């Protein structure tokens, strides 16, 4: 019994039940499959989170994002800069670098991307940890202060997408959102 010492002192010499042995083999092979499938997806899949990361001071990153927003802010028919909810709308160059800043409590600025174009996305935080949760596509990436995360991102659908912060960041956490527009 499980609550008594094994009465057969040489318990490790007992044979293994065939059902047990069969399941061990199946479970072991399934584990190996799942392990190698993660590696395989790096070759056959298009969704592998990049590990390209640079150390950056939060203030230096804020400056980069501000310069990026100023350079590429969208202009309307009269040449006036476009804003939405008081935040600049930025149209980065196709296939170029995109900078997004997470800070208490917003994702800044609003981005307008083109469907099917691969962008080089830069993501970092000005203060605490935040969570980049792109909805409704449901892509979730953690944002750290001091680390500039660079990954490629190709929108495959158009429309208005919300960014919801999903790493707890204090009392205003539930007000922290952002927006990405994807045009055809």
């Amino acid at each position, binding site marked *: 019994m499980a609550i008594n010492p094994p009465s057969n002192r040489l318990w490790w010499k007992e044979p293994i039940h065939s059902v047990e042995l069969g399941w061990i083999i199946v479970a072991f092979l399934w584990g190996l499959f799942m392990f190698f499938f993660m590696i395989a997806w790096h070759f056959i899949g298009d969704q592998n989170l990049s590990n390209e990361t640079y150390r950056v001071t939060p203030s230096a990153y804020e400056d980069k994002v501000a310069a990026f927003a100023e350079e590429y802010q969208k202009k309307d028919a009269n040449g006036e800069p476009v804003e939405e909810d008081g935040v600049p709308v930025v149209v980065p160059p196709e296939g170029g670098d995109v900078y997004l800043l997470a800070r208490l409590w917003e994702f800044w600025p609003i981005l307008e991307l083109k469907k099917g174009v691969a962008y080089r996305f830069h*993501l970092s935080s000005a203060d605490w940890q935040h969570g980049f949760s792109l909805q409704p596509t449901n892509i979730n990436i953690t944002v750290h202060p001091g680390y500039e995360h660079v990954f490629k991102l190709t929108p495959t659908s158009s429309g208005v997408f919300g960014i919801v912060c999903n790493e707890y960041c204090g009392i205003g956490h539930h007000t922290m959102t*952002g927006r990405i527009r994807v045009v055809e």
Partner: protein
Amino acid sequence: MASIDTGAIPSAGVEAKFRICRFTGLRVEANAEALIKVNAVTAVIFLLLGGLMGLGVALTRWPAVQLLPAEWFYLVLTGHGANVLLFWIIFFEVAVLYFAGAILLGSRLATPKLAWLAWVLMVVGAVMANYSVLRGDSSVMFTSYPPMMASHWFYLSLIIFAVGALLAVIIFFATLVVAKAERTYDGSVPLVTFGAITAAIIAVFTLASGAIILIPTWLWSIGLISGIDSLMYKVVWWGMGHSSQQINVSAHVAIWYAIAAMVVGAKPLSEKVSRTAFLMYILFLQLASAHHLLAEPGMSSTWKIVNTSYMMYLAVLGSLIHGLTVPGAIEAAQRRNGFNRGWFEWLTKAPWGHPAFSGMFLSLVMFGFIGGISGVVLGTEQLNVLMHNTLYVPGHFHGTVVAGTTLAFMAVCYLLVPLMFGRDIIWPTLAKWQPYLFGFGAGGISLFMMGAGTLGVARRHWDISLTDAAHAYEFPAAAYLMMGLNGLAAILAALGGAIFIIVIVGTILAGPKLSGPNAKLTFPLHDASRQAVSEYGSERHPKLHGTVVLVTIFFVAFALYYFVNWKYLSELWLFN
């Protein structure tokens, strides 16, 4: 040298009072019994506190109710995590360690005075943590990620609690040494004790990780260190945070074996296989930290893959093995008990009205199907991006820690409380229903949170409607439905939890005394739990048809769900 035999004679000055349990025949030492009681009762008090907080959280996240204001919600959520995930579980685990060490081996508890000190330290830490959270300046969540800073009392309280817990683990190891030296048992330790040793070894690693990260963080909070790197913190903190959940797994698997043995007389199918499965936990479960860093910058894919798979899923293999050997042992025992017709009579005629058994079996099934499968999917390098930090994550760990561990701990109380306190369960009808209420409530919480997370709803978030947000975003109506169902399931679980506490406290204070020579337990132990078993491995070649069918269903569900998630992933925006 040969004449020196310290083992046979207890060393001078050591006096131990033993009684023989009438129901199990176990030798029960007075100090061990007192410390098991006090740790278990303390655990239940924190379960009550943390459970109430959990109900507050669930009712706040129910959009139609939204019970608490935002500030209180984050405060209560922090307290909920600390009270149930740390204090309820670890106090109870200390009781389990003392039981598996001293009682099952028929030994005295080593250094009972230090064991009381360990308890005092843990109580001081737990009370201090609640104080610092309720003050309102430590609503940093259970994980307390820097650079967000809690009050220094918060970090100090966790350190004090961890020191107490580590002391208790050391006393457990010392008890093993005492039992061996005083020859209180013959041969190898029982399987349940072996499982408890696994839990204790993992606990040392876990508590050490906690000390390594929380001590500098505490120094940072009082201004002696200028900064804590947020990524490094996460790597080391999760060496405690996730590994501590592996203590739970080892402990509740050990309890599954114990309950199966005590209620239906089950013996492990093969000692060798079950013990090897526990050993795999020790060797591979420590790599768990990576599960929380799959969506992070700065860690390489190689590191993520090796660690998140516990080195090629070898620790998952351990759990998969227990997933067959536990029901297999029950089937073999039940067939020996005479329920031998067809493939499933052993299961249909199982003691479903015995709360220890029903709680244990529900825990086994839900831990596997809900907590286990979702855990592997969530912990797959690429799939994690689909649900990282969404409600899917709490959905997963309520499947493991609530439906799995907590339900198993509740179930074993129905056996141990009458034996330890000498009082029979006071309201048997309530007790019979309790595991079902709590189990289905906990299972519902897990599934509905996983559903909401699949729809993108964030965890630790006060307002799904994003009313005051910088930019509006509307979640689908199905997400609101999931949150409402989650609230209902939480009410069910809270009801089950309340009944558990009422029945256990009622039994301890006023249950019918089991003092007469003919006193009988309402929820009896199996006859075979007294008799010596001539051989392990129930029968030479037990038929296990039912178990094979159950395990096949599990495996098919696992594989289907795994591939469905890869399909979801392949439809995401491209990011490589």
